[in-house]
């Protein structure tokens, strides 16, 4: 067999760009690249032309103008005199709040239901199956609206709690009032308030909160140190010291001491004037959205968890049983560590979905990023393009951060190949 050195003698012809394997892939890549660039150029150019035709420019100066509107639920101080930028941040924090609450609750619910669906109890497992199918097959927006309608029409206005013989009475030892505006829950009060520190931008944090955080995190670290020491003793002597009561003490006693020191107590909400005050009022918009996102995403997570558990072969369970492990230990030590590897990646997608779905908040008037920047701010300033672009960037950044965090967690649980 003689090998002809390709191209060595042949002069370059244009047709070789298509027929010669050495050039073909490059040719097509260049063509696709040009097409993509042309499309991008056309989009940008078209936007610029149309903006010019409308006499509009592209700038973000509006973010520093006075917002002029109020936001009912907020995590940092805000008034109508603040800028659109601060309103945007208030909205962003609301988005983060609802996403965080939703992810936690949906995970707990999803894991519980996913495992319950595998139960040997026929009725129980079928009921869970019905829950999953009902919630994941009806659009989320409908669930939000249905739950909102139930909250609005079934629960009473605060007025129903008025008078000597009210139609409704508060629950949980007269601490919680359910109304069709908000759920009034107790607030924390302190008889020995240590004051607050200023973080700038009118954001303050109570020193007591910091003290509690320090004590709880410190307790957690101490517990790990104690467990590590116990493990070391066990490795050395084969005898594990009893640690549960030391752990319990480390975790609880400092907190109890702090509660006693600050004089922490509950302030029950009271009906004054039109509304409850004195406690914290959790707007129905937040509660409804939280419930709907949790129930909806929980159904998907349940299926992911079920799939993850089923993916671990039955032989593993049988082997564990054969070694004498009890069912609970089998689940915790054998099944779940392996199932997590299957569960985590789709779980990340569900968290991202939940975060993005929280933008349906506008249906119940919860002022999230979409409600502030993409809603009132956009409408009052007429900066549609800027608002949408900024909103897209923020959601993108948020999703990427969640992905990065969850991927890091995924790396820590995945199969370690050595």
């Amino acid at each position, binding site marked *: 067999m003689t090998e002809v050195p390709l191209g060595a003698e042949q002069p370059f012809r244009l047709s070789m760009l298509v027929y010669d394997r050495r050039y073909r892939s490059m040719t097509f890549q260049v063509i696709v690249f040009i097409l993509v660039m042309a499309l991008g150029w056309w989009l940008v150019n078209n936007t610029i032309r149309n903006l010019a035709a409308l006499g509009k420019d592209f700038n973000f100066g509006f973010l520093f103008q006075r917002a002029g509107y109020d936001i009912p639920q907020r995590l940092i101080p805000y008034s*109508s005199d603040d800028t659109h930028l601060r309103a945007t941040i208030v909205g962003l924090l609301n988005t983060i709040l609802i996403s965080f609450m939703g992810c936690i609750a949906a995970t707990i619910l999803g894991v519980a239901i996913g495992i319950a669906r595998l139960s040997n109890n026929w009725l129980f497992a079928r009921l869970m199956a019905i829950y999953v199918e009902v919630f994941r097959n009806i659009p989320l927006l409908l669930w939000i609206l249905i739950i909102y309608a139930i909250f609005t029409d079934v629960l009473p206005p605060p007025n129903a709690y008025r008078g000597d013989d009210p139609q409704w009475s508060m629950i949980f030892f007269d601490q919680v009032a359910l109304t069709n505006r908000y759920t009034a829950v107790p607030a924390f009060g302190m008889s020995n308030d240590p004051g607050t520190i200023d973080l700038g931008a009118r954001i303050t944090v109570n020193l007591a909160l910091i003290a509690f955080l320090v004590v709880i995190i410190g307790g957690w670290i101490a517990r790990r140190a104690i467990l590590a020491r116990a493990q070391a003793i066990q490795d050395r002597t084969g005898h594990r010291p009893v640690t549960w009561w030391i752990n319990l003490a480390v975790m609880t006693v400092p907190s109890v001491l702090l509660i006693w020191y600050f004089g922490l107590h509950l302030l029950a909400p009271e009906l004054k004037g039109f509304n409850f005050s004195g406690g914290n009022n959790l707007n129905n918009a937040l509660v409804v959205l939280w419930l709907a996102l949790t129930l909806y995403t929980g159904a998907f997570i349940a299926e992911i968890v079920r799939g993850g558990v089923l993916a671990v072969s039955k032989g593993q369970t049988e082997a564990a049983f054969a070694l004498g492990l009890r069912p609970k230990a089998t689940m915790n030590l054998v099944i779940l560590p392996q199932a997590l590897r299957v569960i985590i990646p789709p779980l990340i997608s569900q968290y991202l979905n939940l975060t993005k779905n929280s933008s349906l908040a506008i249906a119940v008037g919860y002022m999230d990023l979409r409600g502030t920047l993409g809603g009132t701010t956009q*409408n009052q300033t*007429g900066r549609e393009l800027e608002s949408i672009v900024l909103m897209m960037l923020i959601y993108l950044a948020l999703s990427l951060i969640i992905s990065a965090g969850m991927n890091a967690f995924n790396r820590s649980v995945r199969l370690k190949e050595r």
Partner: protein
Amino acid sequence: MKRTVFWGALAVTAMTAGAAAADTLSEVKNRGELNCGVNPGLVGFAAPDANGNWAGFDVDLCKAVAAAVLGDPGKVKYVPLTGQTRFTGLSSGEVDLLARNSTWSFSRDTDLKLDFAGVNYYDGQGFMVRKDLGVTSTKELDGATICIQTGTTTELNLADYFKANGMEYQPVNIDSNAEGEQQYMAGACDAYTTDISGLAATRAAFADPENHVILPEVISKEPLAPAVRHGDNNWGDIVRWTLNALIAAEEYGITSKNIEELAKSSENPEVQRILGVTDDLGAMIGLDKEWAKRAIQASGNYGEIFAANVGEQTPIGLARGLNAQWTQGGLLYAQPFR
């Protein structure tokens, strides 16, 4: 060679896309239909009836413009727009005309690049509460929960008013009048605030309108005006003068009943000009001679439209008040047709 054609085609597309927004009149004529942005549901101003036919005060303006431009008041496509989507709908070209009880304000006129064609309803913001609440003045609303349509001037006025009076309130943000109605009726808010005309229209749709009261304070000026895109002056002129024709028609006694007769017999030169009997005013705005006549024929003059949709004989029962002719002590004052 191919690439040149490609770039050329691209440039042409981009240019037509740019140019399309500039001449609304020929666009509407080519389409044979006027896209009119209206309120998704505010009885008396714009709401579809049981058969899906739109009716109301703002709807009649759409009809008048369609009659003037296309010769048929029925050739209107009504696009329901919420408080949040209305201006985007207009500036993106989804609608040619926004007749949706929108307040004419400085920033909307300038920064939002809208042109307002003249006030068709002088309104003000008020509050509605249940009678059994025992509230008689907005000053007593300290601490109340208030339903407010998000993305409106009323949202800003509300914040300003409570701040100026040193009062607190809890806003419940809602997206449309229908949602506001539901929340207010369920007691999820103590008071509902919007333009007084809107409150009256909302109340008229209640099963028990007598149990609700509109508080006497008017906290803002809300001149409601039809809007068009900034930059197409001719189209703006057409809408402005159609509205003026409706207002002038009431002033000069031209009604949908006597219009044919007046066109033949009237000796008043202004009436003759409006109805296209003498001068050809229509040609100056790219329309024919009888444009204004058709506009008035569509649903009658301003007074007839007002009486039929929101006047005292209707369940909404609004008095003319500021919206009477200047000769009757109101603010309506059509510029001369000349």
